């Protein structure tokens, strides 16, 4: 089934169009910075809406790009993340960098375009290029706060950008190197063109180097070192986006590569991914424990979360993938929301440390409650989305026979609770320096409220999202691996 590629790429092109419009519009009509943000938000919402209406399914003639439930699932997740990130950044950008607003949105959107192509890419070329398209704008945005904030912030901004950039380019070099090795043993550049039979060692090396490159993007240990530092230096509304969307993108890339075709070679990659998973869980949780800066804490916690979701990927079963999708979708809302709350609080308390968050629930019950919900979701507490997410990935892992990683994960989830509750302790139990009421802008509050609604909604009624995730996983299709029912 082939179709017109323009139709397949409708949504991607629409987002690219918005980016172009914003960039061009700002050039033509400078000085109307805030308009572009609102326009972006509205148009993104429209695209998101369109994703539910338009039929964009199909594939290109040679199968380099497909569009199906799998792709749509991710595209909606990315669109949601982008929309929320834009809403969350509106007031901040307006206040801090009124002249560079359009730039910000455009860069963000370019990255989103990369992400949106990623899950549908079935050709190595398309995959790596869209992967890089997703990545490069992030380097720039990380250093966005170059002129902004208190004295140490500009320094931190440069540092955030550089750390992300240096580790990122080193990783992409690895990806290319690995890809080069893979393509030496395949017939075509299609990802599904997998050498049959025993994999030549060099191809195996290549595959895992590619995994390493993607692992960087999701922040898996040991490719995670940039995470906390970049989160600390980059502007928080952007970190909200950075901490979720590229991770989802990386996960999409990993899934596409490892499962559509290479599932047959799971014996090669499964131990490696499992290793990444376990080390991420361990490192993420233990490094998060002593953190005193909310952004670093959430950074390490995100690493741990990636560790959990990789367990589900290791199962390379349709069930496991569905659970991973469910996980990453809830994670997007949860972590984005958490960072936006931290941002809202920090904007007025002058810092992101836990001490500065003290008394938040008194100063703004809404923000306090929202943060609590997000933390509980991250910790995996019932009736918020994260509970189901964690449960499902563990269930998938357990069902696939990955008993010890699951037990470890369950145990480490308790360690996680220690620091999540630590944040709750400062926001709810400690008295802060100031008790003045805290006001966040309408857009920011709306973004937080949307996240909150999603997290609570999924928590109360997980079935629809689960259904969607299952459909998406089925669409991706996995080669029924030998170890699916181990």
């Amino acid at each position: 089934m082939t179709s017109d590629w323009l139709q397949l790429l409708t949504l991607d092109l629409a987002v690219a169009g918005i980016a172009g419009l914003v960039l061009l519009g700002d050039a033509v009509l400078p000085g109307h910075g805030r308009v572009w943000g609102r326009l972006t938000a509205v148009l993104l919402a429209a695209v998101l809406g369109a994703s539910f209406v338009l039929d964009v399914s199909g594939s290109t003639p040679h199968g380099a790009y497909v569009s199906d439930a799998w792709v749509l699932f991710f595209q909606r997740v990315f669109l949601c993340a982008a929309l929320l990130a834009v809403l969350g950044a509106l007031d901040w950008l307006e206040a801090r960098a009124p002249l560079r607003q359009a730039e910000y949105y455009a860069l963000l959107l370019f990255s989103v375009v990369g992400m949106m192509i990623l899950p549908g890419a079935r050709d190595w070329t398309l995959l790596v290029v869209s992967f890089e398209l997703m990545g490069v704008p992030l380097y720039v945005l990380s250093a966005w706060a170059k002129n902004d904030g208190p004295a140490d912030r500009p320094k931190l901004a440069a540092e955030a950008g550089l750390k992300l950039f240096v580790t990122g380019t080193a990783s992409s070099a690895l990806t290319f190197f690995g890809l080069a090795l893979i393509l030496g043993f395949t017939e075509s550049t299609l990802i599904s063109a997998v050498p049959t039979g025993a994999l030549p060692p060099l191809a195996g090396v290549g595959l895992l180097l590619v995994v390493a490159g993607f692992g960087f993007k999701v922040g898996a240990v040991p490719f995670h070192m940039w995470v906390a530092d970049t989160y600390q230096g980059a502007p928080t509304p952007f970190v909200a986006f950075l901490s979720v969307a590229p991770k989802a993108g990386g996960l999409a890339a990993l899934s596409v590569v490892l499962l559509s075709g290479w599932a047959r070679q799971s014996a090669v990659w499964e131990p490696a991914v499992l290793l990444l998973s376990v080390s991420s869980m361990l490192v993420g949780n233990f490094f998060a424990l002593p953190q005193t800066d909310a952004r670093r804490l959430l950074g390490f916690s995100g690493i741990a979360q990636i560790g959990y979701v990789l367990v589900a990927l290791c199962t390379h079963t349709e069930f496991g993938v569905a659970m991973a999708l469910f996980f990453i979708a809830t994670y997007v809302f949860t972590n984005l929301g958490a960072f936006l709350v931290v941002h809202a609080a920090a904007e007025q308390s002058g810092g992101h440390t836990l001490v500065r968050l003290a008394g938040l629930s008194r100063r703004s019950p809404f923000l306090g409650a929202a943060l609590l919900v997000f933390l509980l979701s991250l910790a995996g507490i019932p009736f918020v989305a994260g509970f189901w997410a964690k449960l499902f990935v563990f269930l998938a892992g357990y069902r696939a026979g990955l008993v010890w990683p699951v037990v470890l994960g369950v145990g480490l989830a308790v360690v996680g609770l220690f620091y999540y509750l630590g944040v709750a302790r400062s926001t709810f139990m400690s008295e802060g320096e100031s008790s003045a009421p805290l006001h966040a802008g309408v857009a920011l509050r709306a973004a937080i409220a949307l996240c909150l609604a999603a997290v609570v909604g999924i928590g109360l009624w997980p079935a629809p999202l689960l259904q969607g995730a299952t459909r998406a996983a089925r669409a991706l299709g996995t080669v029924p691996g030998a170890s699916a029912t181990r």
Partner: protein
Amino acid sequence: MSTHLLSLVVAAPAVAAALLLLLPRQARLATRWVSLCGALTSLAGALVVAWSWDKAKGGFQFLEDYPLVPSLGIHIKLAADGWSVALLLLTGLIIVTGVLASWKVDRRDKEFFILLLVLVSGVFGVFVSQDLFVFFLLYEIAVLPMYLLIGIWGSSHEVPPAGPFRFVWKRFAVGSREYAAMKLTLMLLVGSAAILVAMFVLWSHSGARTFDLQALQAVAFSRSTQMLVFPLVWLGFGTLAGVFPFHTWSPDGHASAPTAVSMLHAGVLMKLGAFGVMRVGMVLAPDAAVAWAPVVGGVAVVNILYGALCAASQTDLKYVIAYSSVSHMGVVMLGAATLNAAGWNGAVYQMFAHGIMTGLFFALVGLVYERAHTRTIARMGGFAHAMPAVAVCFTLASLSSLGLPGTAGFVAEFLVFLGAATTRFPWWTVPGVLGAFVTAVYVLRAAKTIFWGPLPTGEFAHLEDARGTEWGAPLVLGAALVLFGLWPRLLLDFIDVTSAAFLQRLPLLADALR
């Protein structure tokens, strides 16, 4: 009969909590009344359940079934068995009186009531959930609000560093409310983690991939599966039931918690743990339950005696009561370990009796603390002059605590001991009964020191008796203690039907332990 009766019971407090969210912060009286109405609705529902539950029919009644995650076989399936009836009543009584006892919470009262009601919805849910998964889900809901409830509204006290582990004082403010809240939450969630793993094992070995408790009950799990599941469930739920040595969250937690929270936590939540061990562990893994019974029972008697001994030398009144809970929950676990009808009836009855009794205790301690501003027993004295009603109710609770005939505590303890005496391990009763004696020593000494003695002067000269809503807990719970002590069949008839049903399926149990 309405088929939505159980959902009403479970949801009423949560709905009240949602309504509270909409109320303005200043509407203090409305906050309380909405909370009370939510609690009363549940209690009324529980009474209707008890009234119309057909003892002759037995089994699971008032069945409701809503799919939650159908693809994984997760349903919200609610039904009441005989045990549920007793425990629903308990929860209803405790939450109503708990709300009344919290009438004077003045700091962030709206949040307080919201959390309290959410918590209690979870408790109600656990007792009627017939789906293991939802059981666990609601169990977590019942456990977690405790963190904030203790952390925000709790109280702190000093614990001097000592012992081989004194280095931990560098990191933890041992004794502070934050510490207590964190320890409680973490220990209980470690337990939850064990339960979760056990659940996975059951789910994946059930063949049907279902969480339905009745369906799981019908599955004959292999012995090795059972031997894996049971200890996980025992320790997981047992942590909440205060099983030694995982009980240490309980004294600090209960001592730090505000009154209503202590009432609920010691009164109802610890029962969730024991209920879980019996309902999930013993019913689903009977062979393992038999194999592990010596350990479960042995640890239970350690609980009874050790808890009582620890209580006997506490100087802080709340700690006395808190350790007494550790001791009394040992009675529940001992009853569970007997695996016979007398023991199981006793265990469930003890859940009820101890819930009422300790609820009453904590309500009174809160009342005294509010007036005297101290919980140090030695500093008090002669309070009966000024607060006779409190003294009477405290004495009543003490008597139930030491197992006096005519109070609910006796029926429960006696049944448990009877059950234990007819097992292969009759010696279990020795530490059990000794524990009851030590209880008599410390509760009566506390009652004597606090309430008896010359008319107090100085700072305690102007104490006063219970007033207004404060009467709620003493009257209701005190009356319940006596009523259910004199005529235990009010509840035992329900409990026995279910115990018998569970035991009848497992004739091997009686033989094995006899």
